[in-house]
């Protein structure tokens, strides 16, 4: 089984967002593997361990993303690829990122590609399905279960709380939803081994991609923080009276019921 996992380096979920001159300040922030991509890595490792094959993790990013790739290798992935587009293009949107990944993947004969269903920073959830479409393979998003038997793939897909039981076949791209598995922590021997595992760095030139091919279709013109919510009112008095007051307030002041 030839498995590719698409990963992204993101801010830690516990980080606050601070703007500096209209730009999100990254200095001092903790970075992690996008949590949904961790499910993807874990699933890939489990499938390889059960059925044999190889797991390659791929990311697009700067040098900094090497740390997250090493973590994926320490979890048990076999190889890592860092596509460094920073030197060539300033702004990438989902169109650009999907194009680059598909150009990289098109001759790799992947049986299975796994990605997180969404990255917790940009939150668009586009890249997985876009890559599948560019490679002309099928995809299933937000999966919570995956079972491969030969070429037949049985999946469970989370659809707004309901579950769809789905049958498809390889090659396939899937995106991981929470609940798919319990991602492992890298072990100490894993971390030692990861240092020696291959990590390939590519630039757009290596993939024969022209800057014009990946020019973003959309552009962020401004980033802003939501209005600070002011702490409201903590009700006082007997509990029963507080409950009555609350229902009254929701009705007459907040007008939400």
């Amino acid at each position: 089984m030839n498995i590719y996992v698409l990963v992204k380096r993101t801010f830690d979920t516990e980080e606050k967002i601070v703007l500096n001159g209209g730009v999100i300040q990254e200095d001092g922030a903790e970075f992690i593997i996008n949590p949904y991509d961790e499910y993807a890595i874990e699933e890939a490792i489990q499938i390889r361990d059960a059925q044999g094959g190889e797991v390659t993790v791929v990311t697009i990013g700067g040098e900094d993303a090497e740390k997250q790739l090493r973590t994926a290798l320490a979890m048990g992935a076999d190889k890592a690829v860092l596509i460094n587009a920073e030197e060539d293009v300033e702004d990438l949107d989902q169109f650009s990122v999907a194009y680059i990944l598909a150009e990289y993947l098109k001759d790799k004969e992947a049986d299975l590609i796994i990605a997180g269903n969404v990255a917790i920073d940009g939150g668009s959830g586009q890249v997985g399905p876009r890559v599948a479409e560019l490679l002309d393979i099928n995809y299933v998003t937000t999966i919570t279960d995956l079972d491969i038997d030969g070429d037949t793939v049985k999946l469970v897909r989370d659809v707004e709380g309901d579950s769809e039981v789905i049958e498809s076949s390889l090659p396939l791209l899937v995106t991981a939803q929470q609940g798919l598995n319990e991602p492992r922590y890298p072990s100490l021997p894993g971390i030692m081994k990861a240092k020696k595992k291959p990590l390939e760095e590519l630039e757009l030139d290596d993939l024969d991609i022209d800057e014009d091919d990946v020019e973003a279709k959309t552009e962020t013109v401004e980033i802003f923080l939501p209005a600070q919510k002011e702490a409201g009112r903590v009700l006082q008095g007997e509990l029963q009276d507080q409950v009555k007051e609350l229902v009254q307030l929701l009705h007459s002041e907040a007008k939400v019921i």
Partner: protein
Amino acid sequence: MSKKVLVLSEVREGTLRNVSFEAIASAKTIADGGEVVGVLIGDAVETLSAELIQYGADRIVTVEHPHLKQYTSDGFSQAFVAVADAEKPDAIVFGHTALGKDLSPKIASKLQSGLISDVTAIEGEGDDALFIRPIYSGKAFEKVKVKDGLVFITIRPNNIAPLEKDESRSGEVSSISVDITNLRTVIKEVVRKTTDGVDLSEAKVVVSGGRGVKSAEGFAPLQELAKVLGGAVGASRGACDADYCDYSLQIGQTGKVVTPDLYIACGISGAIQHLAGMSNSKIIVAINKDPEANIFKVADYGIVGDLFEVVPMLIEEFKSVAVK
């Protein structure tokens, strides 16, 4: 310049989802005096056309086929792309729902276009439209524009108000016949877990539980409160990690982001990762034993007390108000 905008309407169990009307309102803003064309895809959906027109669509195009009874990305993309080829729109609007999230990137890729997902507000009209969307699960927002070519957006349910229903409106309804073939996904079964069909992302009221709920059984009063208010039940990561409930209920930076009119947080401390998923709700009520809990910092109204005492009282009070 006025634009022609296609809106994919979403049908669930025979009725149109609210987000479809919100999408029409968004399309009107983008159209800037141009035409809004509703697209209905399914096995028997034509009868829903009139309602879409009453909510502001100018014209409806339907694609009906037995293979479109259930959503699959292959089936629906073949149908929608056929409509797009025939209509040559300047813009497309989908709901940012399970269906919209799954389908829109595939179609954007087929049409080689950009796609602005999860839009919560539109600033300006027509060519000048800027699309506002949350990033970092609502910890920040970005304003995005389309540089060139097709304007394609998905809108988050519950954020953009639909237009007023006008029963006097009428419009043309036409159909396109498409041969739906080569479906690579077969849906064997759909297991319904959602309570009473109120979807968490579209619910006007969300009653949410955290570690303070203490057990799976502890969610029972929350479910009852949600039922009384016609809302849905959600949970914090703490409650999901502790196995009190399914991960599909999780609200937060990992999990769902919700923006209901009313969010009632029960026994939730208010970790930053949870706040990211709910702090843009219109009104937040916090019920927690700990007066120092972080959740009170974002709550409009707070009650310091045991949720197992407060929630049953709330249920009774809401019931008695409803009776009056």
